[in-house]
C-alpha cells in the first residue's frame, strides 16, 4: 500500500504538461483525479517514475454546448457531470451514468478524462461514451485530433492515445427529439464497478418504430464495446418485447467474456443480455414519453 518512489511535476498549462509527457516518454504518467492511478501505484501494479499532475489546469474543467454538441473538459469530475443541469436536459445519459460511479468521494475526485484514458474494463464512462458515439480529443505538443469512441478503446487498460498525448476533451451529440436513454448497472459486490453495465440510446421514427439504437457494454469483456449486433437487429423494428429479447441475445456475441469470483463468463453473458434488454426497454419508455 506504499508506492515506489516517483518524481512529481505540476505543469502550469497544457503546453507544459504535453512537453513533460513527451520528455519522459514511457516513464511519465498523467495524474488527474488519481482514483485509478494511485491505487494501482499503492499496490505496486504501476510504478511511473514521473507523475504529471494536471490539477492546476482548471481550464480543462468545463461542460458547454455548441453546434448541437456537448463538450466536456477532461478534468471535469464525475460529480460535476452528475449535477449538471445542462446535461440533465441535453444529454441525460451522462448524469445517469455518473450517478452509478463509486461513492461520493470517488465522484468528487475522479474525472471523466481519467476514466476514459484508463480504460478499465469495468468502468462506467466507456459504455456511455460508446453508446453516444462520442469523440475524444487528444493533444500532443504539436497537434490535436478527435478520436471516435469506437476506435478509442483498444484493449484492457489500453487506448488509442499516443504516449505523448493528453486527453483534453470529450464531445457527444445533444440527445435528439424522440430519443430515450438508459444506463443500467449491476454493481460488483466488492469493488462497486460494473459486473455488467449497459448504456442504451434509442431513436424512434414517426411510426414509433426503432429508427436506430446504440448500445455500449462494460464489465463484460476486456474492454467496453458497442454491441453492434444488437443495434443491427433492432433497426426499423417495432419495440416489442420479442424483438428486444431477440436483439439483446447478441449482447455478448464474439466477446471474450470475463469471469471472477462473483460471476462466471456464462453468467456474465446472460447478465449482459438481460441488462441490455432492460436498458433498451427503459430507453424506449423514455423515448415514448417525449
Amino acid at each position: 500500500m506504499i508506492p515506489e518512489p516517483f518524481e512529481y511535476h505540476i505543469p502550469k498549462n497544457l503546453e507544459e504538461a504535453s512537453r513533460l509527457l513527451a520528455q519522459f516518454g514511457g516513464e511519465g504518467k498523467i495524474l488527474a483525479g488519481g482514483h485509478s492511478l494511485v491505487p494501482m501505484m499503492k499496490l505496486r501494479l504501476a510504478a511511473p517514475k514521473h507523475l504529471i499532475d494536471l490539477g492546476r489546469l482548471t481550464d480543462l474543467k468545463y461542460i458547454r454546448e455548441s453546434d448541437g454538441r456537448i463538450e466536456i473538459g477532461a478534468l471535469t469530475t464525475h460529480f460535476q457531470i452528475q449535477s449538471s443541469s445542462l446535461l440533465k436536459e441535453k444529454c441525460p445519459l451522462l448524469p445517469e451514468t455518473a450517478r452509478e460511479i463509486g461513492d461520493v468521494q470517488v465522484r468528487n475526485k475522479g474525472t471523466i478524462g481519467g476514466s476514459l484514458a484508463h480504460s478499465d474494463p469495468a468502468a462506467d464512462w466507456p459504455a456511455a461514451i460508446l453508446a453516444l458515439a462520442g469523440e475524444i480529443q487528444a493533444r500532443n505538443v504539436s497537434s490535436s485530433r478527435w478520436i471516435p469512441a469506437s476506435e478509442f478503446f483498444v484493449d484492457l487498460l489500453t487506448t488509442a492515445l499516443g504516449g505523448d498525448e493528453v486527453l483534453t476533451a470529450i464531445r457527444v451529440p445533444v440527445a435528439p427529439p424522440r430519443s430515450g436513454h438508459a444506463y443500467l448497472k449491476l454493481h460488483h459486490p466488492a469493488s462497486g464497478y460494473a459486473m455488467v453495465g449497459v448504456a442504451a440510446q434509442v431513436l424512434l421514427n414517426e411510426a414509433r418504430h426503432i429508427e436506430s439504437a446504440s448500445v455500449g457494454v462494460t464489465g463484460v469483456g476486456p474492454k467496453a464495446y458497442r454491441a453492434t449486433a444488437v443495434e443491427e437487429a433492432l433497426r426499423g423494428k417495432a419495440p416489442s418485447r420479442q424483438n428486444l429479447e431477440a436483439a439483446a441475445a447478441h449482447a455478448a456475441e464474439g466477446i471474450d467474456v470475463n469471469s471472477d469470483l462473483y460471476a462466471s463468463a456464462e453468467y456474465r453473458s446472460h447478465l449482459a443480455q438481460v441488462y441490455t434488454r432492460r436498458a433498451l426497454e427503459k430507453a424506449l419508455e423514455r423515448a415514448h414519453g417525449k
Partner: protein
Amino acid sequence: MPSTILGKRIKRKEDPRLIQGRGHYVDDIKLDGMLHMAFARSIHAHARIKSVNVAAARSSPGVVDVITGEEIKGKLGLVPCAAGIEGLKVPDHPCLATGKVCYVGEPIAAVVATDRYLARDAADKIEVDYEPLPVVTDPEKALQAGSTVIHPELGDNVAFVARLEGGDWKAVESDSSLKVIKQRLINQRLAPASMETRGVVAHYSPGEETLTVWSSTQIPHILKTQLALMLGIDEPHCRVIAPEVGGGFGSKLNLYGEEGVACYASRKLGKPVKWIESRRENLLATVHGRDQINDVEVYVQPDGKVVGLKCWIIADLGAYHQLLTPAIPTLTALMILGCYHIKNVFVETKGVFTNKMATDAYRGAGRPEATYVIERVMDMVARELNMDAADLRMKNFPSPDEFPLDLPTGVTYDTANYQKTLKRLLKISGYSRLRKEQEKLRKQGKYLGLGLSTYVEICAMGPSSRMPAGGWEFGAVKVEPTGKVMVLSGTSPHGQGEETTFAQIAADVLGIPFDDVTVYHGDTFQVPMGIGTFGSRTTAVGGTAIHNAAMQIRKKMARIASHKLGVKPGELIFSEGKIHTRDGAKSMGFAEVAAEAIFAKQLPEGIEPGLAAHSFFEPSNYTFPFGAHLAVTEVDAETGEIKLRNYYAVDDCGRVINPMLVDGQIHGGLAQGIGQALWESHVYDENGQLMTGTLMDYAVPKAHQFPWFETETMETKTPINPLGAKGVGEAGTIGSTPAIVNAVVDALRPLGVRHLDMPLQPEKVWRILKQHATA
C-alpha cells in the same frame, strides 16, 4: 425513583472529537526519533525456507536494521495461545518464521528504517529462497491419510477433538417415530476488516527500562502481561495504551507477532518503532473468522417437537493458533441448541490445521455459526413437516417460567421470553399479511421469501472459571475536589461508545449531571487492572464494576453529608448535583460534600479521607440475550439477484442503558451478519493464495446495500448483574445470517430448493432458476 438518565438517547461523548478528526489513533502517535517497520512476508502457503538474504535490504536507503527469525530465536517468545482445551496441540508459533512458512502472509523478516516508505522499499529487497512443500487448504483433505502434515512434530493436522454430549441418546435412537433430518452447512471464512487496521508504536526507554506500547487493541491489560512475558521484561515496567481504536470485531482481541517484533526492535535499537498495517496485510494476516463445516442431524417428533440434535464440526483453524483460535468453535458447540429446549445433544468438534491464516474471534465468535446451524435446521424441520416456521419455533421454545434453564450442553440460560419477541416481530412485520402476499406473488411466478431467525447468544463473558485469563472486570470512580467525576474502566471499547454508557451509569448512581463524568480506559498505567472488550461483556460486566464502585462512593458521601446535615444516611437522596432529604429541607451540593471528604476537616469518626473507590465485578454466569428477526427478500427470476426488501428485528438485550447505542450495535451487527449471508467470503485457491486480498475483491458490506432496518428492543432483565444488562455487541450479527438464508430458500421453495450455501451469490440462484426452467 425512575432513573432520569438510564434508558435515555444521549449523544455520544466521544463523537465530537472523532467526527472532527481530532481523536488520536496509533498512527497519530509521533515520537522523537521514531523508526518505522515493514515486514517481508511469505508468498508461499507452505515451504521450507532455505535462506533469507537481507544484504540488499540492509544497504537500502534509510535502513537501520533488518530482523530475521534466526535473530530473535530464544530472545523473543512465541505468539501465545490461551485456549484451555484438553489435549490441545499447540505448534510453535514464532513471531518471525524460521526454517519454514505455513501460510501466505506469514512474517519472515522485519525492516526498520527512518521512514515508512523506505522501510517498505527495503522489505521488498529481501530475498527468500523457498523450497515449496505440498499445500493443504481444505480441512477435510487435511484430515485424510496421506495429507501433507503442516506441523510434522504434532503427528497429524488435528489440533483437537472435543465432544459434548447430554441426554439419553439410546432412547432417542431407538424411537422409530422420530423423523431424522440431516444437512451439511458451511460457515465460510470471513475477514473482520475493521476500519482501522492494526498498528503499534513500541517505545523502550533504556534509562528507565520501561516499555510503552501504543497498540490498536481490544485488550491492553492482557497484551501488557503477554508482552512482558514474551520479552522477559518485568511487568510493572511495561505499559500498554490503546488509544482510539477504529474497530476490531474480535480481530484485535489478540497478540500478534508483529507487536512482539516492534517491541523487540525498540528495545534493541533504543528508539521508538512504529508499524502500521496496510489494508492488504490486514486482509491477509489479521485473524479471519468463521470457517466451519457443520454436519447436523436432528431428531423430530411428528408434532414438530425437536428432541435431539447431533452436529459434527470441522473447524478450519489455519496454520497456527492465535490467542483464542481453538476456543472459538467450542462456543459453537455450547450454543448449538439455540433457544429451543432440546433435551439430547451431541457435538463433536474437530479443529484442523490448514495452510491458511489463523481463524479466531470475529463478531459473534462461534455463536453465529451455531445460530446458523440451528436456525437453518428449524426451517428445514418446519418445511419437512409442512408447518409454518413461526409455529414450529413457538412449539419448541421453553416457557418463560422455566428459567433459569439448564441445557444439556451444560450452560444455564438466565432469563428469556422467546415467545414475546417472536410475537412482537410477527406483529410489527405484518407476517401473516406477508405470507398472503407471497402466495399471491407465487401465482404470478414471482419469488418473495420470508426468513425467520430466533436466536439466543451467550455473552457478558464471563465467570472467571470459564475464561482463560479471568472473567471479571475492573471499574473505578473518583470524585475530584471540584466535584467532577472520573471513571476508569478495565474494558477497552473501540467504537462502541461506552464512554457515554459508563458516564450514564455513574451519573445515575451519584445523581450528578452526565457532563460532570469523564471516562477513561485503555491505559494500563491509568487503569490498574482489566480484561478488555469482547464477548459483549463491556457494559454488563465492566459497567457493573463502575456501578458498584459508584455505589461505594455514594455510601461514603451519604455518611459524610448525614454527619454535616444531622440526618440518617438512609434519608438522603442524590439528585441533580445535590445530596438532600426527601423534602429538600436539608441539602448539600455534591461538590461541597466532595470537598468535605477530600479536605478532611470534619469527617465523621471511622471515615477515611478521599473519594475514590474501585470494584472487581465477577459475574456468576454468562447472560443470554435473545431476539427474533425477519428478512423479506425478493429474487429476480431472470438474473437471480437478491433484493433485501425489508428487515425487522426485535432484540432483547436486557436493560437498555442508551437506546441509541443499542440501535447502533444492532445496525452494524445486522450489516455484518447479512454480509456473510449475501456477499462476504474470504477465498483461498488450492495453492493457498488468497483470492480476496484487496477490498476490490473482498465484499465488505456497505450502507447503501441495506434497506431501512425496522428495529425494536424489549427488556427482560438478567439477575446476573445489578444493572440487569445482558449485552448487545454481537446480537445483530448472530441473529441475521440465517434469517437471510432462510428467506432466500423460502423464496425458492416452489422450485424445490431445500438449501443454498453462503454467500448467496446471484449466480448460484440463477443456476437453480435455469435448471428449473429447462426441467
